[in-house]
C-alpha cells in the first residue's frame, strides 16, 4: 500500500476517535451514557443498528462467499423484515414502556433475579467471545494484506474503538456508526463500479451475469426441504425468523439501540430501516463477490489468495511442485477465459443451442481451474500443517490492494476497519451496560450515585475491550476457535428467545417454568447440534419451541406465578 493509502487510514482512525468523543453529550449520568437519554432520532438508530450488523466479517467473508459459491447465503436474510414487524408490535413497546436499560431487566420483573442473571450471563460470555472473533477474523486478513503482525492489527481495531466507546458511551457509538455506515456503503458501491469497469470491453455486464448464472452463483432461491442444507428458502424464512427475533428482540447489542430512540414509534421506524435495506445491502455485498469471480475470469487471479501461505510453500522443499501447479493453473485460466468469451459471444448471438453447448464447455474449464486450485490447497495444507486452510476471506482484500487505484485502496481499507469498529463499539457498549445494570447495580451497589456508576461503566467498557482483544489475539492463533465461538452462539440464541416469548406470550408462566424451560431448550439444541446434521438456522426454532412448551408445562404444574411488579402491556397503538 502507498503512503497516501496509509495516510487515509491514519486520518480516518484519528478523526473517528476525536469525533466520537466530541459528539458525546449528557454523559454525566448512566441514562445518557447507556441510552443517550433516550433522545436519538430514528434514522441515526436505524443506521447504527445496520452498522453493528454489518461487520468486517461480512465485508470480507461474505464477498468471498459470493466469489466462491455465489449468492445462496442471501436467503438467510429473507425473514428479517417479518421479524422486524413482529418485534415492532411486541418487544419494542414492552421494553420502552418498562423504562429499562437492558432486555434482561425485564425478565426479573416478569420472573425472578435468577432468570435475569442467567440470561445476562449467557449474553456476556457469548458476546464477549464473539466480539473477540469480530476483531480477530479481519485482523488476520488485514495483517497479511498490509504487512503488519496480527497482534498489531487486532489492537489497531480494538483500541481506537475502546477509546471512543469508553468516553462517549452509546451516543459516540451511534453517531460514529452513522458516519461509518456512509463510508461502508460508499466503499461497497465504489468496489462494485470498479469491478464492472474491470470487465473486458467485449463482454457486457449482462453477458457476464449470464456467465455467473451458468455456474449457479446467482441462485438466490433454493426450495430444497433437506434439513441438512444450510441455506434454503425455508431455513431463511422459518429458521432465520427465530434467529432474527432473538437477535433483534433479546440481544442487548440491538435492544440498547432502540431503547435509545426518542419514542416507541421512532424505535419502530429505526427497525424498519433494516427491514427495507438489509436484503438489498446484503445482495450488494454478495454481488461484489460474484463480480470478483467474473473479473478474475478475464484477469489472471493468484492461484491462492493468502500470500503468507503462498510464500511459505514457495520457500519449502516442495516449491518445485508448487511452481508446476502454477503453470498448470495459468494454462487452465487461459482455457477458461477463452471459454467464457465464447459463451458471451454465443449469448450475444441469441442461438440457444450454441449457448448451451458453450455453457457446458465453460463449466468443464471452470472445473479444471477448481481442480488445480484444490491440488494447491492440499499442498499448502501438507506444508503448513494448517488443515483448516481456506482463503476465501482474502479474495476481496486482494482485489482491493492489487486492482484499485491509490486513494481508493485506503478508502476501502478504512471501510473494512469501519465495519469492524462499528460492530465492536456496539457490542462493547452493550457488554458494559449489562455488566453494570444486570450485575453491578443489581448485586453490588445501588445507591444512585451516578458519578460512581459512570466510572464503573467506563471501567467495564475498558475491561471488555481488553477481554475481546485477548480473545482476538488468541483466536487468531487458533483459527478453528472462530467456528467454535460461532456455534456456541447459535447453541442458545433460540432458547433465550423462548424465555422472552414465554414472558410476553404466556400470562401464567412462572420463574420455575422459565428457568427449567431455558435449561431444557439449551439441552435439546446441544443434543441436536452434536448428534444430527440439522442446519444451524433450525436450532433457533427448536430452542424457542422447546423452552416455550416446557416452560408452559412446568409453569402449569408448579402453580401460579408469584406476584411481581410485572410490566404493563403497552398502551401504544400497533
Amino acid at each position: 500500500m502507498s503512503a497516501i493509502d496509509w495516510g487515509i487510514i491514519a486520518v480516518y482512525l484519528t478523526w473517528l476517535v476525536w469525533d466520537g468523543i466530541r459528539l458525546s453529550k449528557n454523559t454525566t449520568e448512566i441514562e445518557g451514557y447507556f441510552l443517550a437519554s433516550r433522545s436519538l432520532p430514528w434514522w441515526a438508530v436505524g443506521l447504527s443498528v445496520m452498522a453493528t450488523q454489518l461487520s468486517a466479517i461480512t465485508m470480507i467473508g461474505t464477498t468471498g462467499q459470493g466469489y466462491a459459491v455465489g449468492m445462496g447465503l442471501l436467503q438467510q436474510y429473507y425473514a428479517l423484515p417479518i421479524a422486524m414487524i413482529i418485534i415492532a408490535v411486541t418487544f419494542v413497546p414492552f421494553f420502552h414502556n418498562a423504562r429499562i436499560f437492558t432486555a434482561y431487566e425485564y425478565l426479573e420483573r416478569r420472573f425472578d433475579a435468577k432468570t435475569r442473571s442467567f440470561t445476562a450471563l449467557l449474553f456476556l460470555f457469548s458476546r464477549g467471545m464473539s466480539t473477540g472473533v469480530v476483531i480477530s477474523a479481519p485482523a488476520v486478513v488485514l495483517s497479511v494484506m498490509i504487512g503488519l503482525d496480527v497482534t498489531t492489527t487486532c489492537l489497531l481495531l480494538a483500541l481506537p474503538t475502546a477509546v471512543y466507546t469508553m468516553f462517549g458511551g452509546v451516543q459516540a457509538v451511534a453517531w460514529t456508526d452513522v458516519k461509518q455506515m456512509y463510508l461502508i456503503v460508499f466503499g461497497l458501491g465504489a468496489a462494485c463500479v470498479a469491478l464492472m469497469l474491470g470487465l473486458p470491453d467485449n463482454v457486457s455486464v449482462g453477458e457476464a451475469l449470464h456467465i455467473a448464472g451458468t455456474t449457479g452463483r446467482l441462485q438466490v432461491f433454493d426450495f430444497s426441504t433437506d434439513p441438512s442444507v444450510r441455506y434454503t428458502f425455508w431455513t431463511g424464512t422459518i429458521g432465520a425468523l427465530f434467529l432474527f427475533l432473538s437477535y433483534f428482540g433479546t440481544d442487548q447489542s440491538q435492544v440498547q439501540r432502540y431503547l435509545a430512540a426518542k419514542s416507541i414509534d421512532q424505535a419502530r421506524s429505526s427497525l424498519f430501516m433494516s427491514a427495507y435495506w438489509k436484503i438489498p445491502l446484503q445482495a450488494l455485498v454478495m454481488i461484489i463477490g460474484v463480480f470478483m469471480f467474473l473479473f478474475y475470469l478475464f484477469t489472471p487471479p493468484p492461484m491462492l489468495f493468502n500470500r503468507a501461505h503462498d510464500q511459505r510453500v514457495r520457500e519449502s522443499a516442495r516449491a518445485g511442485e508448487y511452481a508446476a501447479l502454477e503453470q498448470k493453473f495459468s494454462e487452465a485460466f487461459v482455457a477458461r477465459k477463452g471459454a467464457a468469451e465464447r459463451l458471451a459471444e454465443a449469448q450475444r448471438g441469441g442461438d440457444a443451442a450454441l449457448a448451451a453447448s458453450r455453457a457446458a464447455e465453460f463449466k468443464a474449464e471452470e472445473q479444471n481451474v477448481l481442480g488445480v486450485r484444490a491440488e494447491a490447497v492440499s499442498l499448502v495444507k501438507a506444508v503448513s500443517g494448517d488443515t483448516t486452510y481456506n482463503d476465501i476471506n482474502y479474495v476481496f482484500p486482494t482485489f482491493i490492494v492489487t486492482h484499485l487505484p491509490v486513494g481508493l485502496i485506503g478508502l476501502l481499507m478504512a471501510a473494512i476497519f469501519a465495519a469492524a469498529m462499528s460492530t465492536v463499539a456496539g457490542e462493547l457498549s452493550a457488554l458494559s451496560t449489562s455488566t453494570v445494570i444486570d450485575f453491578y447495580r443489581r448485586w453490588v451497589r445501588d445507591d444512585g450515585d451516578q458519578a460512581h456508576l459512570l466510572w464503573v461503566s467506563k471501567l467495564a467498557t475498558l475491561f471488555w475491550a481488553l477481554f475481546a482483544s485477548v480473545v482476538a489475539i488468541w483466536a487468531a492463533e487458533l483459527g478453528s476457535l472462530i467456528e467454535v465461538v460461532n456455534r456456541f452462539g447459535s447453541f442458545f440464541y433460540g432458547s433465550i428467545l423462548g424465555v422472552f416469548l414465554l414472558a410476553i406470550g404466556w400470562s401464567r408462566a412462572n420463574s420455575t417454568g422459565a428457568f427449567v424451560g431455558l435449561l431444557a431448550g439449551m439441552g435439546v439444541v446441544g443434543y441436536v447440534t452434536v448428534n444430527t446434521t440439522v442446519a444451524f438456522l433450525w436450532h433457533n426454532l427448536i430452542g424457542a419451541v422447546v423452552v416455550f412448551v416446557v416452560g408452559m408445562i412446568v409453569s402449569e404444574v408448579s402453580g401460579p406465578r408469584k406476584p411481581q411488579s410485572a410490566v404493563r402491556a403497552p398502551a401504544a397503538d400497533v
Partner: protein
Amino acid sequence: MTAMSKTYVRVATVWVATLAALYFFQSYFTR
C-alpha cells in the same frame, strides 16, 4: 387503520416486491 399499521403493510409489501425482484433476477440470468 392506524399510521403504524399502514407502515407494517408497507414493510410487508416491499418485502414481497424485493423477493419477487430477486426471483426475477435469478430466473433471468440463469435461464
